[in-house]
């Protein structure tokens, strides 16, 4: 690259010298300089053109440029001929630089490949290739090292930098028993872990594979532009031939020289590369920019689908909500909050139902089971026990009705455990799956993005589903769905969208892989570590945040916008220049702008996709 730059610059200097000499003295000295300059600037293009013709390749851009510039020189337009070649070369260099830069920025981004693993064998640490490590091997990850394979911690605690995978800058704490994902960096502690997946199956391999194969699913604009280029060049070259030959042959008084000049302009504009390069560059940079935000997109066609999303269907548990049951409210009547919680925890102490577990977790203290007697479980209702000799009833509203206890029956989202002490109501505890912090804001943003319909599909009961739906402002809620029903509902929703519109389904990927696969765009939330999600989904949100969904849609709209701008801009400039050249209004300088200038502008425009606002 540096060598060609030197060649081009010296060629340019010679050109200037030749032009100056030509002003003083017209004749052989400047002519010689012109030829040397041209050879310096365009020699390699001519060689390539000859080589390609021998191989039977016509309409190759080297050939077109060679003909256009040699033609200009033959009709004595030396300066223009050389300048066209010069600018063409500068355009090529810039293109090469831009593509290189873009390729490298993605490579950096994807620099998460672990180089080695420290395997522990009889108290000895051996450095091996991650490929050679087997499931069940014990590995040691020192501070600052990258986790080579998915594993489970068996000793030590530490903070992990997950930003390479999730875009999340906050470190994650891990301790014994936690799963650690390959690709993350161990920040401070020493971790000993048991490998749970081979390298090929590990998160880091899956992600690398995914990004490397990303833009192989091509978008409509990419397909359009390559098809356009296939016909564009031959058509323009044939037009150039006709333009150069027909008028001077058939119209009296028309000079060959003038029409040849116009035809040469056609040849200069006929190169398709400007058009073709900016589109893949746009999408590729977009895939890179999105993954920086923790959004993995499996192909450029999904940008199109996301940008045209009309309906979004969500799974509830684990997607809009955290998927973890927690005590949300403790509302005592006549006793203190702590007393109420203690009664409930003691009453539920023998059960290991998720609801009981969450109450015990909230209580957090040791339960002295010796103080509990006469435990009686009333199936589907609750529990009746004696705690320190006092009769306690804990359960749902039906249980209160059954025992004829007046209870607080305001409508609540979630599961309510009512508690009565010695036949008297003492309050309730509300347990619910908490809605994620940014869910409400995310839905609001989605609605502002021209999405016609937001739907929730959940297996949860109607009361909870409707409440959550109303709170979040969703258009429609379908509840009590079995996994198979979700697919049927999705089919129904697919019939509601317009021809161009797309349907996106957002799930956590654990049990809704078929639905993710059936939707136009399947979006998996927190897909890290779930193989099914990575496989079935088209878009993977590496963090647990629903707010990444409107962001993904906004990014897609921006990318599609830029791609369209580039297509329209490049094609219309080229056509305009063709018309003006045919009429003899412009010259070769304008034509070369039509090629190189458009390329550079389109590439600069495509670079906008690398950065996205919050």
């Amino acid at each position, binding site marked *: 690259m540096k060598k060609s730059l030197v060649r081009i610059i010296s060629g340019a200097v010679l050109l200037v010298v030749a032009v100056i000499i030509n002003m003083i003295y017209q004749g052989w000295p400047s002519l010689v300089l012109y030829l040397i300059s041209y050879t310096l600037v365009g020699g390699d293009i001519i060689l390539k053109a000859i080589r390609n013709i021998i191989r039977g390749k016509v309409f190759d851009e080297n050939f077109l440029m060679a003909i256009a510039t040699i033609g200009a020189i033959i009709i004595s337009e030396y300066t223009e001929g050389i300048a066209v070649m010069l600018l063409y070369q500068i355009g090529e260099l810039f293109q090469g630089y831009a593509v290189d830069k873009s390729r490298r920025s993605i490579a950096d981004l994807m620099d998460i490949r672990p180089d080695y693993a420290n395997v522990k064998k009889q108290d000895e640490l051996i450095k091996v290739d991650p490929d050679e490590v087997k499931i069940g091997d014990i590995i040691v990850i020192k501070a600052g090292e990258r986790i080579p394979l998915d594993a489970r911690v068996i000793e030590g605690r530490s903070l992990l930098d997950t930003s390479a995978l999730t875009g999340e800058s906050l470190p994650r704490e891990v301790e014994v028993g936690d799963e650690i994902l390959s690709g993350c960096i161990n920040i401070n502690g020493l971790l000993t872990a048991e490998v749970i997946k081979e390298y090929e199956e590990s998160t880091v391999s899956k992600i690398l594979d995914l990004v490397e194969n990303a833009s192989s699913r091509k978008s409509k604009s990419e397909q359009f532009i390559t098809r356009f280029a296939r016909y564009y060049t031959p058509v323009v070259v044939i037009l150039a031939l006709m333009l150069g030959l027909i008028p001077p042959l058939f119209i009296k008084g028309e000079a060959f020289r003038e029409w040849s000049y116009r035809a040469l302009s056609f040849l200069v504009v006929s190169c398709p590369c400007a058009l*073709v*390069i900016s589109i*893949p560059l746009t999408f590729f940079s977009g895939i890179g920019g999105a993954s920086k935000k923790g959004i993995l997109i499996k192909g450029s066609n999904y940008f199109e689908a996301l940008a045209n999303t009309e309906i979004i269907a969500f799974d509830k548990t684990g997607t809009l909500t955290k998927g973890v049951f927690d005590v949300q409210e403790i509302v005592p009547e006549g006793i203190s909050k702590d007393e109420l919680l203690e009664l409930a925890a003691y009453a539920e102490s023998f059960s290991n139902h998720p609801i009981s577990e969450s109450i015990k977790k909230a209580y957090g203290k040791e339960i002295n089971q010796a103080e509990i007697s006469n435990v009686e479980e009333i199936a589907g209702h609750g529990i009746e026990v004696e705690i320190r000799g006092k009769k306690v009833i804990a359960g749902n509203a039906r249980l209160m009705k059954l025992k004829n206890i007046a209870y607080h029956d305001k409508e609540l989202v979630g599961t309510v455990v009512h508690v009565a002490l010695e036949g008297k109501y003492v309050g309730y505890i509300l347990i619910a799956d908490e809605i994620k912090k940014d869910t409400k804001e995310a839905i609001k943003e989605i609605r502002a993005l021209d999405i016609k319909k937001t739907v929730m599909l959940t297996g949860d009961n109607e009361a909870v589903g409707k409440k959550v739906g109303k709170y979040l402002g969703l258009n429609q809620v379908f509840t009590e769905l079995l996994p198979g029903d979700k697919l049927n509902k999705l089919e129904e929703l697919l019939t509601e969208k317009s021809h161009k519109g797309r349907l996106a389904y957002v799930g956590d990927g654990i049990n809704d892989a078929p639905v993710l696969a059936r939707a136009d765009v399947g979006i998996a939330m927190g897909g890290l570590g779930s193989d099914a999600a990575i496989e079935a989904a088209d878009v993977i949100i590496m963090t647990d945040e629903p707010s990444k969904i409107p962001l993904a849609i906004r990014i897609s709209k921006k990318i599609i916008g830029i791609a369209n701008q580039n297509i329209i801009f490049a094609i219309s400039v080229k056509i305009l220049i063709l018309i003006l050249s045919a009429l003899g209004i412009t010259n070769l300088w304008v034509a070369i702008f039509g090629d190189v200038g458009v390329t550079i502008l389109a590439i600069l425009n495509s670079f906008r996709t690398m950065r996205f606002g919050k």
Partner: protein
Amino acid sequence: MKKKFILEGLGCANCAAKMEVAINKIKGVEKATVNFMTQRLIIEGVDELMAEIIEEAEKIVKKIEPDTKMKKA
């Protein structure tokens, strides 16, 4: 069968598109994609014809862009 290759030195987007069209026309190829940006060629084709497919694809790559090397990924 799916085979992946790296196209080292692939420098022209239009050439990449031409290669893709030509490789897709080889007998036995079910689907071929050339990704200009990642310099990857993926060929899905009939198992028995794979050896010939790869040979043909190499010829096509060389013809369209002589400086490009086709390597096993």
